[in-house]
């Protein structure tokens, strides 16, 4: 019994990690493709593999879409020389990429990707494990990854990475606060639960009525919270316009200036894994998770089909959100470091506090 349970968890973990790694990996190709479409150029379209690439139409199409590019990019990281500069602190230098990468994966263990409704009508979350403090766990664990950046910058014993790590730590502290305050109204609305599964269950159905009916998603109920959380997510996952840690025009490569080969690869994939995590979280908390607009939670398909549909819905929402995050990167210029701090402390944080107060009053009035 015990080992059976362990095995199931292990299988679930492997499936989740494999899926998310695939999504994060193909996010790299997706990013390059989206960048090229924005910039009116073809993007990666040459890489091909012997057998798959020679399938008549499909192979050609996959090559043009840059499908095999990821394999080449990944293989490159394995085959390059692993440089460790002489002036670095060896231990921290080696540990840093792992610290940056692992939390993104660990945080995923508490995120529900869908639901399985059995014949008894009881919905079970499709997650590695479902905590009742799931959200708290995710926030706490994914926050650790900044230590990877700080360690990398410090251990590199070089000035540009040092700047980068200082900026990253300051930025993370500022925006963690906003994330916490932006999410509080959501938890107040759901009656104080931090369980991500219940938060999604809460979002089925419609708010308002008639032609003005909107899906009962938290983005419609509390748009300010959603906006604050989205902005903070950009900052948390180090995406432009908030990529202070690796703003390549002034800091060369930022914290990974001294890194190469697979250690750099870990940072790189870690960044995209964080972006994937951020997109999944946003769609679960604010975009209704696996709820389909105007379809009530009880009317969702049941059984295995229902499970596949619910995971598919989350996947689609995640992909759309990730595409949005990428489009923003290729459209906007970058903030200056002090402007990021100003935005965080002088605009987002007060707005989050006011937002929290407003929803607290509303909820008190509704319940009282």
């Amino acid at each position, binding site marked *: 019994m015990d080992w059976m349970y362990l095995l199931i968890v292990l299988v679930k973990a492997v499936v989740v990690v494999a899926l998310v790694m695939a999504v994060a990996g193909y996010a790299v190709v997706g990013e390059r493709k989206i*960048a090229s479409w924005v*910039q*009116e150029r073809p993007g990666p379209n040459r890489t091909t593999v012997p057998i798959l690439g020679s399938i008549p139409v499909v192979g050609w199409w996959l090559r043009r879409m840059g499908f095999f590019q990821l394999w080449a990019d990944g293989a490159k990281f394995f085959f390059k020389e692993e440089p460790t500069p002489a002036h670095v602190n060896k231990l921290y230098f080696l540990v840093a990429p792992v610290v940056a990468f692992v939390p993104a994966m660990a945080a995923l263990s508490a995120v529900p990707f869908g639901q399985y409704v059995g014949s008894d009508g009881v919905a079970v979350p499709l997650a590695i494990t479902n905590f009742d403090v799931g959200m708290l766990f995710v926030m706490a664990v994914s926050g650790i990854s900044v230590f990877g950046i700080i360690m990398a910058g410090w251990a590199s014993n070089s000035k540009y990475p040092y700047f980068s790590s200082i900026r990253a730590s300051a930025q993370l502290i500022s925006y963690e606060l906003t994330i916490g305050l932006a999410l509080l109204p959501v938890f107040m609305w759901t009656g104080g639960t931090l369980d991500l599964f219940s938060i999604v269950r809460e979002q089925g159905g419609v708010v308002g009525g008639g032609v003005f009916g909107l899906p009962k998603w938290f983005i419609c109920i509390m748009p300010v919270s959603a906006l604050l959380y989205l902005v903070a997510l950009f900052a948390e996952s180090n995406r432009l*316009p908030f990529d202070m840690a690796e703003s390549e*025009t002034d800091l060369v490569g930022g914290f990974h200036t001294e890194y190469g080969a697979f250690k750099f690869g870990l940072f790189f994939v870690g960044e995209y894994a964080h972006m994937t995590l951020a997109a999944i979280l946003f769609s679960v908390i604010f975009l209704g998770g696996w709820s389909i607009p105007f379809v009530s939670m009880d009317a969702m398909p049941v059984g295995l089909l229902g499970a596949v549909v619910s995971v598919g819905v989350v996947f689609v929402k995640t992909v759309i959100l990730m595409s949005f995050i990428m489009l923003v990167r290729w459209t*906007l*210029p*970058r*903030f200056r470091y*002090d402007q990021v701090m100003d935005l965080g402390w002088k605009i987002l944080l007060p707005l989050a506090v006011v937002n929290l107060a407003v929803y607290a009053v509303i909820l008190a009035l509704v319940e009282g």
Partner: protein
Amino acid sequence: MSKTEEVFSFGDAAARNAALEEEIHGDTMVLNVGPSHPATHGVLRLRLELDGETIVKCDPVIGYLHRGEEKVAENFTYNQFIPYTDRLDYIGPIHNNVTYALAVERLAGIDVPERCQAIRVICCELARLLSHFIGLGCYGMDAGALTVFMYMFTDREKIYSLMEELCGARFTTNYTRIGGLQRDIPDGWLDHVLKVCDDVEKTNELCDKLLTRNRIFYDRCVGVAPLSKEDAISYGVSGPNARASGIAMDLRKDKPYLGYENYEFNVPVGTNGDSYDRWLVRVEEVRQSVRIIRQAVTKMPGGLWYNDKATKIFRPRKDKVLSSMEELIQNFMITTEGPELPVGEAFFEAENPKGRQAFFVVSKGGGVPWRLRIHGPSFSIISALPKILPGCLVQDVPVVLGSIDFVMGDCDR
């Protein structure tokens, strides 16, 4: 020994250790930006002294691209040096060709026909588009907007294709000759120019819309590294950077050459001299350049594209070389010994895309200059960096360097 010298005297271990000690225990930190750094657009090196992230002192170190162009000029005939002028301001190379040719022609005391002048005007303005498009594009890229750079580069490629059609080379054009041009414009080229002008205008408007009123870009640039009018004059800054500082100086208006007085165009002038004004001035100059090109194309006069009176300077046409003794000898003499120029000296300055580019030619007769002095606008603006950079943050460095739009080939020569 001053502190700067101490740091650079690598042979002196004691001085080096003292500098290191100073850096570890002192209040400031020294950050070396360049010569190989993405923000420096070439091989400029900045030695920044930082207090936190604020720059307190800036030492530009130049000379990494010094090729001794002025000395090279003394060993080549006037026409042979034209390819070297391509490498001065290599962002708009054809303008250097024109300026150099005009300087030597002033020494020779010859004029070129109207058609040649009009073609040269089109070339100059195309060079301005080339230069401003990479200047604006890199500026956008330095502020984090990579897409603007790509849009502008796409249109630069179209202008390069025009250059290829005109003279066979895309980049290093080598198009002018003393007393004329390498060849006449090809058939249909003017139509292509007009078409490219439309594209360029569209892209310019697009990037203007993307960035000029963008809140992030606005915040990044407004009030960053302002160069006052007085400082601009005392550092000898010219071109768009000087105009952004409020100096209404444009040699095309002030000392017209190539018949620029016959074209209608405005000179945009800034008020604050900050990075944002430098962006606005260049965006507007692109519009004015397109305007000039359109006028030049519509008014393109017929006739010869070289001075046929300057027989000892401009090489005769090939068909005449093969049929007439006199022309054959001239061709031989101009090719081997260079054009025959009088004894004397001539100074000529023109409005290069980056500012005032000047050639001072001293001749003792014959086909080789005795001395050729080149003035480049990038040198002046880089020498103003220690004045404008202190007080900025490290992250402002790329924006400021992008906004002043220098090119090291022009600075180091």
